[in-house]
Every structure is written in C-alpha cells, then in structure tokens.
C-alpha cells in the first residue's frame, strides 16, 4: 500500500509500463530487420541481434538507475536541479528534438510502406496525417488512457504478428540455414549490431515514463520490461532464422523491407483472407500508431516540464501542436532511402549517445551531489526506492 504523501501524477501499472516501453522501440527498426546485420556479417548476423539485445539490457539497467534517482520526476524535470540549469536545458532540448525526429522517421517510413503496398495513389503526407491524428487521439486521454489503449490494441497485434511469424516457418526452403552460424567475424558483427540498433532505439522514454508507475509496482515494472525485452529478442531471433532459411542471406540484402517481403509471400489457401500476411502488415498501423502516440506523449511531457506548463489544457495544446508539426515535418523526407540514411547517419549515433551519455553524466554527478539528490528524493516521496 502506498503511504507516500505526494501522488500528483496519474499512475500506470507495471504491465502498462512494460507495454509502453516496448511500444516505444521496435516499430522503426523492424522494417529494415535483418538486412543490415546480414549485409555486414552474413549468416553471423544472428550474433549482431543477440549482441544488440545484451547491450540494450545493460543500457536499460543504467537508465532505470537514473530514473530511480528521483523516481517521482521526469528526467527533464530533475536533471537541471542536479546538473545545473544550462546543462539540464541542453539535455531537455536534446531529448525533445530526438523524440521529434525519431517520430518523423517512423511515421514517414510507415507512410512509404503503406503507400508502396496498398495506397500507391495516396500522397505520403496524407497517410502520415491519418496515422498521426490517430496517435494524437490515443494520447489525448493522458498516460493511463494511452496505456490502456496500447494494452488493448498494441499487445494483440504484437501477439498476432508473432504467431504469423511462426506460421511463416512453413515457407522455410533451406533448413540447413537454421543451424546457428559457427563463425564469429568480430568487426562485421559489431558493424551489423551498430546498424541494426535502430530496432532498440527509443526505449529511453523510460526516463519520462518512470514517475508515472504506481509507487508499489516500480520493481515489478522494471522486471516486466526486462521480460518484454527478452521476448522481443526471442521473436527477433526466430524471425531472423525463418527469414534466412526462406530467402537465404544473399537475397535478404537485396530487399528494402525484408520482414514486409516475408509477410507478403505468406498466403493461407482456403482461409477467408488468402493473403494473410498482407493483413498483418496492414494491422501494423496500430503498432506504428502506438509508437507515435508514446513518442508524442513523451514530447508533450518533456516540453511541459521544460517550460513549466501544467494542466490538461496545456497538455492538449502541446500534444496537438506536436502532432501538427510532425505532419508538416514529415513532408521534408522525400523517399524511403533518405529515411534510412537519416536512421543510419543520425538517429542511431544520436540515440546511442543519449542512452550511454545520460547515465554516464548523471550517475557520477548524483554520487557527488548526494545531499541535493536526497533532498529532491524526499521532497516528493518520504521513502523513495533505493537507487542501486
């Protein structure tokens, strides 16, 4: 039972937190998966995926440690109090801009995918517009409402996609490729892991979302998030194996969106929808809408924390303006190739820098400014959870 004095934020459960964090990544990278890993490391690209998973686990651990410093405040809110205002301001700006560009890359990419397969006559900005509008609507009700929407929409689609992924194992043509690769070319594996890391970029929203967990469920929320990460890695490994044993490594490197290609060749004869895989690709709209909604939510909260805005009206205005800006900005990206270049050249380095940089800066400074941190912790909660 929570006996703390401050309960100012609407709270979410441990499972909702894990769902929101999971929906905050994978959506963007899943389209390219596993082309970059295979292009660099061939069959040994499997180790790139596993390595990415391990790195994410470590970074997630560090990010949770940062969040536990002041568990009732978002990073944008407490960082200036620990690091000084200018540094905190730079960090907040970085977070906001990064969330924004990541969201642009994701919605535009999905706009291109949908346009290419289903809506060749519809302009991309229109597809992006409807996607963003849906995302804004999902986030309109606030944290708890968004979390519940994700639980009822995102999770079933992920489960359906996973089951469909298992069904694609019927397409396997070369079972010999299911054997784990026996070679470990270190540099290609690392290069593959780096370029494939876009799949996990985005879980840093944990620093904004952490204060919204119900106090007594924080530990459980972290545990569920780790379990969800394990499930994601397991699904990726299965998909990797199925794809490589279906197409072979050489052909995958020729495909722009390998997983979409795999889904498109999946047909269930006799079923009321013959091209079942295409249906699943269409349903991914919900996953990308979830990703966008979570990102817009983060963007809104970070902006509000930075400019000290409060109240439901401010939240709605910032959310709607962010969504509108997202639609306008997406028109800057001319094609899918540019979107991919944006990911590889800017979003992966900037995201990794953020994920590594935040704990590396905040944790040592917090250690040396123990008194300040203690004061901040007890201001909002009488018995906050231990940091370590």
């Amino acid at each position: 039972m929570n006996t703390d004095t401050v309960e100012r934020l609407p709270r979410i459960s441990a499972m909702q937190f894990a769902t929101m964090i999971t929906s905050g990544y994978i959506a963007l990278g899943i389209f390219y998966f596993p082309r970059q890993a295979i292009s660099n490391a061939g069959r040994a690209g499997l180790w790139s995926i596993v390595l990415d998973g391990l790195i994410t686990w470590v970074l997630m651990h560090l990010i949770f440690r940062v969040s536990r410093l002041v568990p009732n405040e978002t990073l944008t809110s407490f960082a200036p109090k620990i690091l000084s205002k200018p540094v905190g301001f730079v960090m907040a700006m970085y977070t906001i801009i990064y969330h924004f560009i990541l969201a642009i890359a994701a919605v535009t990419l999905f706009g291109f995918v949908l346009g290419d397969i289903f809506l060749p006559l519809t302009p991309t900005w229109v597809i992006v517009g409807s996607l963003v509008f849906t995302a804004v609507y999902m986030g309109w009700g606030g944290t708890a409402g968004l979390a519940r929407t994700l639980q009822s929409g995102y999770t079933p689609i992920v489960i359906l996609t996973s089951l469909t992924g298992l069904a694609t194992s019927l397409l396997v043509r070369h079972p010999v490729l299911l054997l784990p690769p026996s070679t470990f070319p270190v540099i290609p594996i690392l290069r593959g892991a780096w370029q494939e890391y876009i799949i996990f970029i985005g879980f840093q929203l944990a620093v904004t979302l952490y204060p919204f967990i119900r106090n007594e469920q924080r530990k459980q929320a972290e545990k569920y998030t780790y379990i969800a990460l394990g499930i994601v890695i397991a699904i990726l490994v299965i998909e990797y194996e199925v794809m490589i044993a279906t197409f072979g490594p050489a052909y995958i490197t020729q495909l722009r969106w390998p997983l979409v290609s795999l889904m498109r060749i999946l047909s269930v004869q006799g079923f009321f929808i013959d091209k079942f895989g295409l249906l699943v690709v269409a349903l991914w709209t919900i996953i990308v809408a979830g990703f966008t909604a979570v990102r817009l939510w983060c963007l809104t909260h970070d902006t509000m924390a930075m400019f000290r805005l409060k109240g439901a009206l401010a939240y709605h205005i910032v959310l709607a303006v962010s969504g509108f800006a997202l639609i306008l900005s997406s028109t800057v990206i001319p094609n899918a190739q540019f979107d991919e270049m944006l990911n590889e050249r800017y979003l992966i380095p900037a995201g990794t820098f953020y994920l590594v940089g935040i704990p590396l800066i905040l944790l040592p400074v917090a250690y040396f400014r123990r008194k300040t941190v203690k004061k901040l912790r007890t201001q909002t909660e009488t018995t906050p959870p231990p940091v370590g």
Partner: protein
Amino acid sequence: MRFRVWSKAITVLLGLIFLLTGCWGNLPVNNRILVLAMGIDPAKSPNQFTVTFQSPTPSAVTNSSQGSSSGSGGQSAVFAVKGTGQSLEAAFNQAQAKVSKDLYLGQLQLLVISNQLKPTLLKRAVTSLQSIGTLDKTPYIVVANESAFKMLQQTSPQAKFPSLYFISLFGCMSCQTDALGMRFWQYLVRIDTRGVDPYIPVALPFSQGYRVDRIALYRGYHYVTMLDPTQTTTFGILQGLAHKVSLYLPKFQATVAFLTGPSRLTTQVVNGQVHATFNVHLTAMLMGLDSHSETTQKISEISQMASDTLAKRCVALVRQLQHQDVDPLGIGRMLSWQHPDTFSHYAHWHQEYPKVHVIVHCVVKITDVGTTK
C-alpha cells in the same frame, strides 16, 4: 462555452479530413481490369518486347462466382491486351491505351516468359516487375516454348483461366509428378544468389490443355536448355521434389512407383577439390509383380536395382549440368553456406563448378506392394 463546442467540432472535422482519406486513391473494381496472367515475348524489333496482359471477361467472372463452369455462349472466358516497348512500363502504357479501364497488376497470378527472350530483355523485365509495389511476388512463373502469347491463348477444360489451372496444379503437391511450381520470389532468390541458377517449369500447350513435365534451365538470365521429362523427374529426385515418379525395371517386369522422399546435399573440400554429395532417401510402391514372386529377397533385389539405376541417372544428369555449366541444384550455394571461406576464393563459381566431384547415394525403400493409391 460556445467557443469550446466550436473548437471541438472544428478539431473533429479537421481530423476527419485525414481519417477519411482511405477514399483518396479509391477505384471501384468495375473500373479495373484485374490482370491474372502476363506473358512476355520478344517483339519483332530487336531490343523490344511484347507483353500480353490477360484478364477474365466480366461475364466469366460473374459465372465463376455463381459456380458455373461453362463459358457464356461459347465466348472466350479471357481477353488479352498487348503492348510493345523497350521497357515493361512502355509496353504497359501501350496496353493501357487500348482499354477503357485501369489495368491492375495487384492480382497477378501467373507470369509466362518466352524462352526466346534475350537475357538483356529478360533482366529488364524482371527488374521492372520487382519495382511494382502492388505486385507481391507470389505469382507462379512458367516458361513458354517460343510464344508466351500462344500459350496463354490455350484453354483447358479443367479450368476457366490459364492462371487458375496453374494455381490449382502447383498448389497441389499430389497433383504433380514433381512439385515444380516456382513462385516469382523463389525465382528472384535464385537470380540474386551466387552459386545457384534458376530453373522454371515449362508449360507446353496441347489440345486438351497444358503439359508440365519439363523444366527450362537458365544461367542467370541466359536460357540454356530444356530438360526432357525423364531428366526432369531425375532433377526432381535430386531436389527432393519427386512425388509420383515411377521407374520401370525390365529385368523384373515390375514398376517402382510413387517414388518420393527427401534429398540432402552436402559439400566438402578435400585437398582443394570440392566434393558434392547427394543423399537421396526414397520410399516407393512396387507394382506389376505377380503375387507368387513377391518374396522378400526379390523385393530387396528390386529395391537395390532401383537405387542403382536412379543413382546412375542422377550422376549422369549432374554431369550433363556441369558440362552445360549450369547449376540449378545449387551446389555452389551450398558450398557458400557450408564452406564460405572456400567459396569466397572463387571469383567466378562457373569456372570451378565443372570440376566438382559429385557423389549420389540413393536408397529406395519399398514400403508397399501391389496396391494402387
């Protein structure tokens, strides 16, 4: 208060502008010609090809949905539009100009290519086909001897449209001697993978429909040859695709039928020489032997003879393929998977391929005697 209501209403209306855009590129199916089969032939002018877009007639579609199997008043169930050009897109434009509805390729089920198509033209066509977003790369691909257009003109009493015939044939494993069906994406995989060459089933029209018992072999985009029916069944055995292959043994006056089973290819490098081993394990039914002579020893002898005969056939076929410098069995591909370092040393696999030492282990196990399935 009134401002709030109005602002909400305006927001909803603005949102609907986006949410109702599903109708943006909407085209009713009545305004579309759903192309089910497409044939590609060389045109009279060099460096050009003629593309045939075949679609069912509206009456045939209506009859089909109502379960009728006959044509309406003896009219053809399909119609074709042709276009010629230096690119697929140019041919498409010409064909589109001849019809009043939208030629739609998103429902394509069959792709027929002529074996007379030059490699440059075939490559151009395949590259264009890959870039059509609405085409999901699942149509079956077949080769026509000389003219794809003529092949598409052939009708079969078993199916209303050529595309339906081939979907029915290739979709049913037990309906074929060998499961030769090749989807477009499977063809693309072979084209884009080093160490393996594409093969495509050949559809030969005859008075009652089509005969599909041969394959055309390609080296990349170059048409090389067509295997005869016996060689095709042997190829099927080596690929693990055999389903209803039979072998008559004159010495015993008996037939080993329904030969089916997997084939496993492994590669080894022995003193710099590449060895390829096919392990073929087939089950079969013995037919034609009278019940008095069905002894265990005799069945064993027949089994042994069938194994030896098939192994010899397989070796002969692989040697022929090596001689023709075409690798549809994917020996090079398997080498690249099992011994990537060795394979990467070969700048051109086709220079090394004819030197590969091939071994075929074939075991025929007779599981049933004297009955028909």
